[in-house]
């Protein structure tokens, strides 16, 4: 009865999903937090109260105050400014590396799934082998051996994150290839490109969107983790991971240096995870995570 009513209203799958998403309060909060973070990151150069490298050696490390909301570090640098600039890097790495993994994963998975047969078996066997590689180790080796530059960081992280995406896309393509409605489209004489554009992509899109949303926090975690080990973003740039590392080193005397960057990172991760979970429920995607 409900579906009939919806059909009457003419709501499409996507409108329906959006409606369900808007009803999920946590997901909406997540989207808002994320949007704020992105807006702040984009606007950082114009809104920061201090220059990025402005030192105030006389002041030194000071706790949160009216002049310095998040306090200052040992060199008297404003922590709020540094957290904002760090967020730019962290978010950029998150989005860029996810884009790399998205591109590689979708192309690889769709190819394997569409070609099927022996090619598919070989391609997926390769993915299985890469799964057995200890990811973090792999990234560490890459970063150590090939110098610590930020482009390599995208590639390294993207390179280990595309595997699951490839599996998901392949699975979707495989299952869709043989479903009745694709057959029906073929019987009706639609061209291959039309089938791919109008039927395959919309159906694969749901899981891809969900998994992408859930990959971004993972990627940001890896970046922060690498930076924490000193392998990620290098000075004079900084990211939340770098700031957390500095904060952890100084936490005995200046705990705020650890607390604020940690809060910024965790809040963003929360937002992305809630949004991802919400999207998964709204788009009714199963097995997109873990």
């Amino acid at each position, binding site marked *: 009865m409900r579906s009939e009513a919806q059909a009457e209203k003419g709501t499409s799958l996507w409108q329906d999903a959006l409606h369900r998403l808007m009803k999920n309060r946590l997901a909406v909060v997540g989207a808002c937090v994320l949007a704020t973070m992105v807006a702040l990151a984009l606007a950082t150069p114009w809104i920061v109260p201090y220059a990025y490298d402005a030192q105030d050696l006389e002041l030194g490390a000071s706790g949160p105050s009216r002049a310095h909301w998040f306090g200052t570090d040992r060199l008297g640098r404003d922590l709020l400014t540094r957290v904002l600039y760090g967020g730019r890097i962290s978010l950029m790495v998150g989005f860029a590396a996810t884009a790399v993994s998205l591109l590689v994963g979708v192309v690889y998975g769709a190819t394997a799934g569409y070609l099927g047969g022996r090619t598919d078996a070989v391609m997926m066997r390769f993915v299985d082998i890469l799964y057995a590689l200890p990811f973090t180790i792999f990234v560490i*080796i890459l970063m*150590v051996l090939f110098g610590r530059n930020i482009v390599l960081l995208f590639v390294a992280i993207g390179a280990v994150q595309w595997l699951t995406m490839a599996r998901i896309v392949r699975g979707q393509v495989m299952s869709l290839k043989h479903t009745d409605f694709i057959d029906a489209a073929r019987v009706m004489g639609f061209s291959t490109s039309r089938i791919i554009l109008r039927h395959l992509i919309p159906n694969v899109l749901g899981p891809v969107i969900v998994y992408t949303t859930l990959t971004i926090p993972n990627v940001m975690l890896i970046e922060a983790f690498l930076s924490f080990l000193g392998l990620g973003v290098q000075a004079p740039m900084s990211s939340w991971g770098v700031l957390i590392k500095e904060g952890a080193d100084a936490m005995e005397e200046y705990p705020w240096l650890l607390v604020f960057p940690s809060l910024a*990172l*965790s809040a963003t991760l929360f937002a992305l*995870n809630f949004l991802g979970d919400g999207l998964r429920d709204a788009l009714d995607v199963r097995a997109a995570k873990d």
Partner: protein
Amino acid sequence: MTRFLVRRVLGIVPVLLVIVTLVFFMIRLAPGGPFDSERRVSPEIIKNLEAYYNLDAPLHRQYLAYLAQLARGDLGPSFKSAGWSVNELIGLGFPVSLELGFYALLVALSIGLAAGITAARRPNTLQDYAPMSFAMLGICIPNFVLGPLLVLVFSLWLGWLPVAGWEGIEYKILPAITLGASYAAYIARLSRGGMLEILTQDFVRTARAKGLSETRVVFVHALRGGLQPVVSFLGPAAAGLLSGSFVIETVFQVPGLGRLFVQAAFNRDYTMILGTVLFFATLILLFNLLVDVAQAWLDPRLRNQGV
């Protein structure tokens, strides 16, 4: 079953070979060598060192020599820790990581399962939201944040536990919790999802119709099926836990394998890097195999298919 096991164990070998080859050439192709930073050493000595470690031979020779060595189970001498073989170093670090990983796994399983099953029994009530919010916290607070924060509170402010080190049991509490926390969170989410799905199945209704107690319905009838997602997660998770987390071992100064590896990577200790990668990969593959066996044991429908 035996045939299945033999086939799977043999299947591990080519995978390891691919990994060794990949990492071997990646290391050699990278700019810079292991002895670059040692400035005081004269070129002759470096030559001698390179000759000693067979680094002056053509690349394919080095590769074949390394494989021959591997076939004997020898991971070679460490480039940086003079007088130590890689086998010895791993033997030194792994038991520590194993112990830490074991405690962390205990933490993860006990907290994760309890939270997940509790939540699944009354979905969309406080009994569900409370543990699941906690789980989300565990996922969103990375261990390199959680670790320092726990030290800050329990060691520095409260003074209950030591800051770092690896001696008595009191040294192991914070690292185990820090390492286990995010795994506990994932296990909680997975077991909740699995149990929720199973609890709506017809056979659970049958079990209730038989007049079984709720406890028996949940633990005897539903648990096996509900834990399937957790079991498949445990493969990679256990490998990750037991190999020790680099960050945890760094934060808490635990002399485990993870820290040895990070040091080796920074030092460009070729053989040590290769050796640890190989060791970790073997661990992961073995755990995945173990998971498949466990799954067949849990789900009789998988048994006959020979997996």
